[in-house]
């Protein structure tokens, strides 16, 4: 049976009257766009929801937009209005707009509440036996809550999301109040016990903050390991107040079990391996000492326990433990806080450039050194390159690695007159400029490998105008091919730009700005892992699908990306705070890395038209650190306002 259908032409004809006029439609769209852009320029909030407009009436727009935006208010609004549905609601109600205000409010409320609890607390227990019983009772009543808090803290720390931890720290204010209140009800609200409870809590929070990769996937300007250091600082402050805790005075020192010794041996072996690994990578004696120091402290404590087992802890015992703790924590805090307190200075970087006397990782080391050295030269630090020149002379007399020769030429280490003496120079030079008549200029592959020959020929004046024209064509072809090539790296784009300058044919920035900006946006990575922060620029466009980890930002590529921005400007919609976050000073950057990061960060801060983060942004992004400081402050406050008690142990002697 054949089915009869209405002809398509008839359907089209029936709908023809409704067809819009092509040109009129496009003109109407463009007119709407123009009106929208004008209105947005005049009033950044005109596209915002009424709720957002109301909020903007009393909150700074940058805070409202989660500090994700550039100074241009229009961008900020776009960020804020980009969210949808439930996310929008959460961001309005909890984050980011009011998080700082919540912190301030919670801190004020907690301080008042602590005083109120102190004032309302009943009669203190004076008998140590009754006190021990009350403590046991408290633990029986609260142990499940305590275990839950421990588990949540560890889980959140392992997740590494600092905004979750920030929430948790605020919740901790409430936990602190709850603990104080319950201790007071049992007659345990004395300074020693409260100080010790707070100290143990802060110690636990500090350890969880240190072991995890907190904040590596988020924007921060300071290393989030500082959060752990703040908690440890609180521990050190509270240590003197915990001497003479009545429950401990009668307790006897116990001999470590065999399991404990087995654990110590395993821990020592692990730390020894870690120390070997660290030494092979960084040759930093301080880090190795820190790693091995933890073993010494653990073993030392166990030897002490074995030697004095059966004796009462008493106050001297507590003091000894406090000294041990201080010996452990002070170097750890100094290590973690050193990049924050004393970031790499220009003098440090000049010293690094001048003292470069060995390249342990060959061309890779040279590449890092070159990035810092070019920055030092452009920053007019006038470094003395005697030592690096000695090193390059050895290379020149030996292998003549093309990558290293390129670095030497780009930093002026290699005299131009010596270029002609490089093996293969003539053959390499000809390979770039000789071409059959009529052949279209081809892109240059492995530009980083071949840079020295083109640069050397241009600096020596070995290129005729026709050869320069031809080379310009090849370099432009390389640039154009970059948008499609799977092998492209950001370094190639930078080298093309530099080489065009060197051969006297500067790049048409306006023409290629869009191409470079597209690539910069594509290469920016917000993935983290392997001790690398999110927000840097990837080295490779493609990454093996079956690789055991994802590609994160590379320090070198990020430095090249910033240099490209110096030439081509900052791409629209590229949040520089992510880049700044990637380059933040960190205790986990060793050797060359910290100097490369510091030089790239300095370049970033001096990009034309780029604004450094304001104090609101800094406070917003460091809210976890701020919350940690407030929590420590509350613990110290709660300890100080609690009444000190003097006890006589029930069975001394």
């Amino acid at each position, binding site marked *: 049976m054949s089915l009869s*259908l209405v002809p398509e032409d008839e359907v089209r004809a*029936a709908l023809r009257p*409704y067809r819009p006029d*092509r040109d009129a439609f496009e003109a*109407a769209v463009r007119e709407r766009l123009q009106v929208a852009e004008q209105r947005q320029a005049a009033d950044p909030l005109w596209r915002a929801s009424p709720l957002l407009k109301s909020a903007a009436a009393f909150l700074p727009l940058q805070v409202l937009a989660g500090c994700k935006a550039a100074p241009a208010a229009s961008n900020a609004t776009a960020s804020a209005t980009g969210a949808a549905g439930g996310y929008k609601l959460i961001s309005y109600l909890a984050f980011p707009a009011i998080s700082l205000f919540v912190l301030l409010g919670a801190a004020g409320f907690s301080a008042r509440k602590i005083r109120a609890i102190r004032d309302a607390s009943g009669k203190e227990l004076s008998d140590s036996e009754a006190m021990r019983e009350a403590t046991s009772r408290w633990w029986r009543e609260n142990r499940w809550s305590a275990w839950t808090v421990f588990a949540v803290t560890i889980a959140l720390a392992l997740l590494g999301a600092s905004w979750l931890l920030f929430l948790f720290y605020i919740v901790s204010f409430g936990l602190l109040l709850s603990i104080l209140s319950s201790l007071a009800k049992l007659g345990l609200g004395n300074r020693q016990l409260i100080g010790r409870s707070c100290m143990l809590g802060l110690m636990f929070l500090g350890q969880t903050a240190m072991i995890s990769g907190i904040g590596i996937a988020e924007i921060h300007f300071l290393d989030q390991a500082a959060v752990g250091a703040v908690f440890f600082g609180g521990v050190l402050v509270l240590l003197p107040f915990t001497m003479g805790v009545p429950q401990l005075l009668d307790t006897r020192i116990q001999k470590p079990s065999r399991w404990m010794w087995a654990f110590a041996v395993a821990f020592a072996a692990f730390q020894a391996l870690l120390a070997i690994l660290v030494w092979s990578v960084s040759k930093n004696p301080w880090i190795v000492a820190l790693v091995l120091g933890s073993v010494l402290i653990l073993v030392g404590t166990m030897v002490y326990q074995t030697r004095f087992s059966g004796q009462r802890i008493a106050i001297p015992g507590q003091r000894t433990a406090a000294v041990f703790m201080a010996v452990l924590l002070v170097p750890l805090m100094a290590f973690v806080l050193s990049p924050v307190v004393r970031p790499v200075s220009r003098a440090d970087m000049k010293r690094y450039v001048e003292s470069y006397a060995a390249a342990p990782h060959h061309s890779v080391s040279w590449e890092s050194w070159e990035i810092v050295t070019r920055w030092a030269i452009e920053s007019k630090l006038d470094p003395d390159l005697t030592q690096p020149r000695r090193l390059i002379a050895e290379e020149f007399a030996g292998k003549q690695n093309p990558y290293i020769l390129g670095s030497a030429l780009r930093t002026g280490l290699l005299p131009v007159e010596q270029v002609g003496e490089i093996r293969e120079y003539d053959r390499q030079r000809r390979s770039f400029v000789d071409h059959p008549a009529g052949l279209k200029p081809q892109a240059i592959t492995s530009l980083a490998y071949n840079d020295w020959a083109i640069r050397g020929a241009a600096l020596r004046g070995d290129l005729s105008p026709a050869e320069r024209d031809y080379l310009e064509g090849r370099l432009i072809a390389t640039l154009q091919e970059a948008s499609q090539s799977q092998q492209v790296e950001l370094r190639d784009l930078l080298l093309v730009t530099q080489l065009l300058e060197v051969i006297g044919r500067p790049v048409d920035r306006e023409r290629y700005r869009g191409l470079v900006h597209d690539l910069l946006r594509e290469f920016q990575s917000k993935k983290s892992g392997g001790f690398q922060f999110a927000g840097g620029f990837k080295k490779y466009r493609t990454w093996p699908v079956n690789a055991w980890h994802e590609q994160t930002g590379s320090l070198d590529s990020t430095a090249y990306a910033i240099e490209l921005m110096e030439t081509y400007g900052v791409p629209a919609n590229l949040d520089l705070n992510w880049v700044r976050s990637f380059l933040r000073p960190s205790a986990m950057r060793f050797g060359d890395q910290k100097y490369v990061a510091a030089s790239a960060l300095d370049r970033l801060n001096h990009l034309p038209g780029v604004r450094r983060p304001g104090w609101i942004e800094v406070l917003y992004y460091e809210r976890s650190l701020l919350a940690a400081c407030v929590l420590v402050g509350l613990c110290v406050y709660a300890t100080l306002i609690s009444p000190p008690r003097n006890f006589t142990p029930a069975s001394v002697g």
Partner: protein
Amino acid sequence: LDLTKLIDAYRGPLIGLIASWGAPWAEATEIAEESFAEAWLRRESCRGDIENPVVFGRWLRGVALNQYRNSVRSRRRRERRVANLEPAALAEFPSAETETQGEDLQALRQAIDRLPSKQRQAVLVHYLEETSVSEVAALLGVSAKTVEGRLYQARRALRRMLDGKLGAPQIARMLCL
């Protein structure tokens, strides 16, 4: 991303889609214009590769749906405030041209209006302009095969309607949908 190319590719289907939701034709055109402007302004918010037709189609449909809902809300407000406004008058578009069409086409147009919603949507999106099935599929978020199936069923249903051979199930479906 070229705005002109995007408009050329999605103008007809988008207007047809908005009309299939129930907007009068004149209003559908305006909503489509606003949707293109909005989608272009907020293109950075699009999740996924915006140059992928499937991604862009889905994104544009979402923007248009929001615009359509806003339009419906503001129309209702307007209707509440101006009691004597005849909504039907807004739906007449373009009246001068429709009068000049033959009776057959007028009947076909009425039959299209009576099609089940998914078939009507496919017809309006596909036939308003010369739009490929793949672009229609991208905009509707379905497979090309599904679009082809709906178009086939729609043309068959139209033929039956025009010949006065409507079956009971089809009448029931039209009443329900």
